[in-house]
């Protein structure tokens, strides 16, 4: 397959996931558009060196996350926190309640934007249904460290979303 064909295949399979990643990291529409373009460009260029070293999925996510990290480090505003710290921070008052898909989505985005790497990546990849082994391969964390973080992510999501819906 040529570089162009590999890129088009990757975009067909993972284009929507890349859109979700850009949305998670960048609330501003213009900056989000820029980030998505940077990720796409990096991905296209990366296929010049792709020879099946890993699965296409791992390759795409690595490029996307590595590009997003660089952009995030450049544009960082405010202090980022770990999953442990975030669990200790009370959820903001939510007068409208937790109901509503758009509302839940917005709150998920806010949680990811507050997290420091690699916790933000673990949460994002967990939401994308990646298993622990794939997350370890993409982030470079050990399998044990990923498992611990996934456990914390699940706890955090339960505490922030499930309990509120029950009340």
């Amino acid at each position, binding site marked *: 397959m040529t570089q*162009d064909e590999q*890129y*088009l295949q990757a*975009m*067909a399979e993972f*284009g*929507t996931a*890349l*859109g*979700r990643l*850009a*949305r998670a990291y960048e609330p501003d529409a213009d900056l*989000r558009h820029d980030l*998505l*373009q940077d990720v*796409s*460009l*990096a991905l*296209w*260029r*990366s*296929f*010049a*060196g*792709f020879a099946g*070293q890993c699965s296409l999925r791992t*390759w*795409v996510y*690595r*490029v996307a*996350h*590595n*590009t997003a*990290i*660089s952009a995030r*480090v450049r544009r960082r505003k405010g202090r980022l926190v770990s999953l442990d710290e975030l669990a200790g921070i009370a959820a903001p008052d939510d007068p409208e309640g*937790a109901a509503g*898909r758009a509302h*839940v*989505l917005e709150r*998920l985005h806010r949680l990811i934007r507050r997290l420091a*790497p*690699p916790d933000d*990546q673990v949460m994002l990849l*967990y*939401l*994308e*249904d990646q298993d622990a082994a794939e997350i370890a*391969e*993409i*982030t*470079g*964390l*050990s399998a*044990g*460290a990923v498992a*611990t973080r996934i456990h914390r992510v699940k706890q955090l999501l339960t505490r922030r*979303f*499930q309990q509120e*819906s029950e009340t």
Partner: protein
Amino acid sequence: MTDPRTIWKTQPNEENAMSDLAALRARAARFEARVRLRNVALYAYSAFSILVSLWLVARGAFPAMRWPMLLMVGAHLFVLWQINRRINARRLPAEIAARPALDFHRGELERQAEGLSRAWLWYMVPFLIPFAWELGIMASRIHSGEAPPEAPRLLVIFIVVAVCFWTAVLLAFSRAALKAQLQIARLDALKAE
């Protein structure tokens, strides 16, 4: 309530114009043009400084300062080469996926920290040597009575301004290098988990 993961995966998509190869190539061309423009601005500034110095030397404007001025030209060329080398040393795009995010992020920080912590050597010393030489010439002319009466006051002003400026530059580089080192230590701790 629906599982947050389901809501996440079924969120509305935003159109990505980069699915089109023509748009992608246009973006790549704009990116290359931006890099070229940034390099041109850097070279233009250095070329201007070098040409002014060479012009002054050629006209014999400050005969006593001829050698330190030529050394300053050399310093400009050296720093320019260093900046260019460091820009070119950045990872090739194809390598962006060769390493996991943690290693990639660490590599970027290491490159930054290395450049910043040694900036005194590759950025400051080349300019400070000819500058100190020029100050020495001024001081010796004052001492021998060849300099105009306002020269001692000017020399003191030069020294104070230079010390303040270069100290601020050194502190800024050191602070940025320390921040990068702290982040590297944090990533190493994560890696060791």
